[in-house]
């Protein structure tokens, strides 16, 4: 073949080689086709490990049990036993080292999540007793009168 064919051909081959070399350094070695094939399983394998390293924040009530056994047991005797400690006290994360103190949500809005009356048939909400927040002691926090761990006023 003539020179005018070879020269651009070499240039093209050179560019392709450069791209392949750049790709070798840029694309991680664990990137490729995995179990589910090219359509669903084309990814960087170590990313699965990255996601597993995310910090757990909500530890669950068993984490609270040993130090706060009085609170843990008092709420278990009430209708609020189904509510996790961290739903009101906030995520424990590494408490007591980090954070040393948890911020408790004592707002009326927190109680109204369940106790605003929405008598929707075929939803569990209809079975929960509610109050009208506009008429029921509207400027007070619920916890002024109701202890969330023993919510029934008569047994307080």
């Amino acid at each position, binding site marked *: 073949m003539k020179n005018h064919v070879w020269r651009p051909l070499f240039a093209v081959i050179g560019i392709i080689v450069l791209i392949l070399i750049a790709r070798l350094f840029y694309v991680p070695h664990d*990137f490729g086709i*995995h*179990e*589910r*094939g090219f*359509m*669903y*399983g*084309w*990814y*960087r394998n170590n*990313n*699965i490990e*990255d*996601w*597993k*390293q*995310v*910090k*757990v*924040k*909500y530890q*669950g009530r068993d984490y609270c049990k040993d130090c706060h056994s009085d609170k843990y047991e008092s709420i278990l005797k009430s209708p609020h036993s*189904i*509510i*996790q400690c*961290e*739903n009101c006290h*906030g*995520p424990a994360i590494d408490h007591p080292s980090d954070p040393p103190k948890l911020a408790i949500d004592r707002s009326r*809005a927190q109680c*109204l*999540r*369940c106790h*605003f009356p*929405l*008598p*929707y*048939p*075929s*939803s*569990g*909400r209809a079975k*929960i007793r509610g109050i009208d*927040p506009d008429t029921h002691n509207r400027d007070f926090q619920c916890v002024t009168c109701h202890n969330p761990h023993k919510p029934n006023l008569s047994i307080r």
Partner: protein
Amino acid sequence: MISRRDFLKYTVKGAAGLAVPLAAIEIVNPKKILADSQGIGKTRWVFLVDTYKCVGCGFCVKACKIENEIPYDANVTRTWVERYVNTKDGRLFADTPKGARDGFTTNKIDLGLGKFQDVKNEDIRRSFFVPKLCNQCENPPCVQVCPVGATYQTPDGVVLVDRTWCIGCGYCIMGCPYGVRFFHPKYHTAEKCNFCYHRISKGLKTACVQACPFGARMIGNIKDPNDPVTKIVTTERVGILKSEYGTKPQVYYIGLDEEVR
């Protein structure tokens, strides 16, 4: 000049040569070998939602946003709760104010753009709450459309996003029929529910399952026949969302209705 004899010889050889690699590829299909040896893992995460039990308190949404570091006041969330209100005169309303992060604490239906619709309790024929999250589809369209391999399905069935690899093109957000994907306001990459992969891989429940006081949410392994979720999914009547798309969603619902999309 090639003789007729040589031409026929080369043709036969060439055809045989072409056929061999095809057969060879078929023999070393890695997917098939893996499936035969161990059945692609012993875990397939699935989710079960009981809409009868949901009261719309939104503790699941709050826990999810904090657990997964989704900016709390940004109007995006990995899971949310929808309220459906069907009135006696045949009107249908559905809303999810802030994804129900603060629950449903009013009768008024949020119509968006600051407009609210007051529906009297006595006018309601039927009303209920439906929690939504990523369906971790068996055939995830969001993964198919990713041009760079930044989103993928793990061997245990969860669809993850590689934040270092995502280029933010948004194809997956458009491709998801369930609208569960969004851009993370901080990382500017595609974001979605991943069944709290850091928790389930440690044997914990997802943050939303743990936070739900009413047991409306459950997570389980469909490949374990003794798993409570597997028992319900395989023996009771459960529904899935948008089955017509062929995505094979793996979030099952008890008490779905036709107005739920």
